[in-house]
């Protein structure tokens, strides 16, 4: 079922278009990464979906409701970029307030705080929280009452690697529950393993919306194979055979397109014990992103 449907969404600030004709569907249980430079329109699109900003043209529906309507706001959870809370309140008090605001009076705030790893700081004032702890508290309020749609704006900013891992585990749980998750990010490499689809905004236009594999195939991006040979002479020979570049010591770096990858690997294995080690790096989101976001320029 389609939870979020954006049709030809256009937004002008003055006469400049911030978003032009963006169409995007998000189904329940889907994890979508929304990527783009600063100023590409990610945050604007999220604010329009939340009903905080009016759209100029087009139509948005959240489970059939208009953005900003009481029903839509009850269905949507939001984690703003660099989330902030009243400093004088404790984590538990803040969750209880949000619980009451969303109509969950008997909210088990203890369990939610436990889930995001804040149970020890539950009754400390937010003023004493680190940036990562605030982000965790922000994530805890997203989990209130199993939302239909979760909008996460730069959720990993300021998180250490362990916290990031926890965050993605929670996002996976949310999606498994049926929540549609839209993650706006420029933390490219982290998003790739964890999302079902990638949408790329460039200067307010949606330039891509597909799975990572399809996007990579369309872009024809190269896989990087790095080979460490047993000795220098062998390395020279492999470089000559595969058209790769010799790099430090006994290593060779080969760039191959989607159709050459398997052939190259086979050639390497035929060399038997000449090859000591192989590293394969698939086309990164970084390159992909550069390809799609630069294509129109």
């Amino acid at each position: 079922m389609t939870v979020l449907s954006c049709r030809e969404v256009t937004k002008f600030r003055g006469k400049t278009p911030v978003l032009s004709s963006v169409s995007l569907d998000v189904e329940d249980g889907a994890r979508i990464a929304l990527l783009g430079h600063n100023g590409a329109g990610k945050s604007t699109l999220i604010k329009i979906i939340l009903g905080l900003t009016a759209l100029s043209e087009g139509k948005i529906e959240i489970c059939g409701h208009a953005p900003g309507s009481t029903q839509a706001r009850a269905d949507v959870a939001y984690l703003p970029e660099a989330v902030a809370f009243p400093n004088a309140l404790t984590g538990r008090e803040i969750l209880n307030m949000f619980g009451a605001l969303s109509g969950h009076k008997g909210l088990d705030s203890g369990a939610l705080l436990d889930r995001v790893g804040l149970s020890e700081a539950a009754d400390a004032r937010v003023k004493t929280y680190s940036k990562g702890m605030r982000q965790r508290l922000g994530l805890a309020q997203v989990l209130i009452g199993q939302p239909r749609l979760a909008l996460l704006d730069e959720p990993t900013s300021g998180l250490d690697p362990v916290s990031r891992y926890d965050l993605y585990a929670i996002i996976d749980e949310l999606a498994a529950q049926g929540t549609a998750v839209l993650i706006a990010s420029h933390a490219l490499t982290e998003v790739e393993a964890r999302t079902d689809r990638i949408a790329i905004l460039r200067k307010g236009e949606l330039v891509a919306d597909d799975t990572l594999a399809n996007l990579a195939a369309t872009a024809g991006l190269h896989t990087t194979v790095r080979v460490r040979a047993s000795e220098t002479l062998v390395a020279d020979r492999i470089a000559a055979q595969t058209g790769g570049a010799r790099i430090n010591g006994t290593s060779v770096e080969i760039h191959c397109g989607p159709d050459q990858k398997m052939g190259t690997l086979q050639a390497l294995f035929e060399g038997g014990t000449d090859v000591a080690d192989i590293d394969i790096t698939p086309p990164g989101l970084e390159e992909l992103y550069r390809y799609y976001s630069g294509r129109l320029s």
Partner: protein
Amino acid sequence: MSTLARVTAITRAESLILRRNRWLVMATLIMVAFALALTFAGSAPTGTLGVDMLTVSVTSMTTLAVYLIPLLALLMSFDAVVGEADRGSLGLLLSYPASRAEILAGKALAHLTALTIACVVGFGVAGVAAAIAGGVSAESLMALLRLMATSVILGAVFIALGYLVSSLASSSAAAAGMAAALWLVFVVLYDLALLASVVIDGDGMFTRHIFPWVMTANPADAFRLWNIAGAEGVAMAAGMSGVADSLPKWAAPVSLVLWPVMAFFAARFAFRRLEP
């Protein structure tokens, strides 16, 4: 899932904040200190006017309240909206299913409760002290209760006006400046302008017929008039029976009660137009 539950949730959080950042204690202490000081400094004319000490105390405190209550109310409320916008917590709050009117109402209830506590304790302590030191009557007790009640309404006016500037301003600093300007206009400049026009007009048409109405239109003056017209002793002690007598009895109360309602709707209108 009702309006009441959402308003209560905001009120509870804001009340906790006012308690934790010592606002409640500070406001109450300020009220007690000023009310006590004025009561005992202004107790000299008791004998000459033939009224008890509590009456004189209420008169002094009325004058004090005109300055202090709007100031406290604006200090409490000017940052309510723009402060959250500056910190970045407003967007999240607005993504929840609470309407902007509910958010303002929740904050207003918390701020008004704090102000009520400060007024009742401050005026109450001074009133009890005056009653013990120099006598009390049914009339002067009524005047004290009236002072407390009208102070809360006056506070509501300026709390709502504070939300209005908070929704219009682009930063906390701008909101503070606008709040200071509001205070200056309503409490000081308005009366100065009126005084100047009366001096120029002498005993003419303006002074006799228009001036009392223009004066009542200002909530701070309506507050003063209501307290003075309400009790003869207070009017005599304040020397303001002239203006109070020239108006129908309902004029000042109606003005003072209408103001918070109009100011709240103005604040809601401004808050609705705000994009966080």
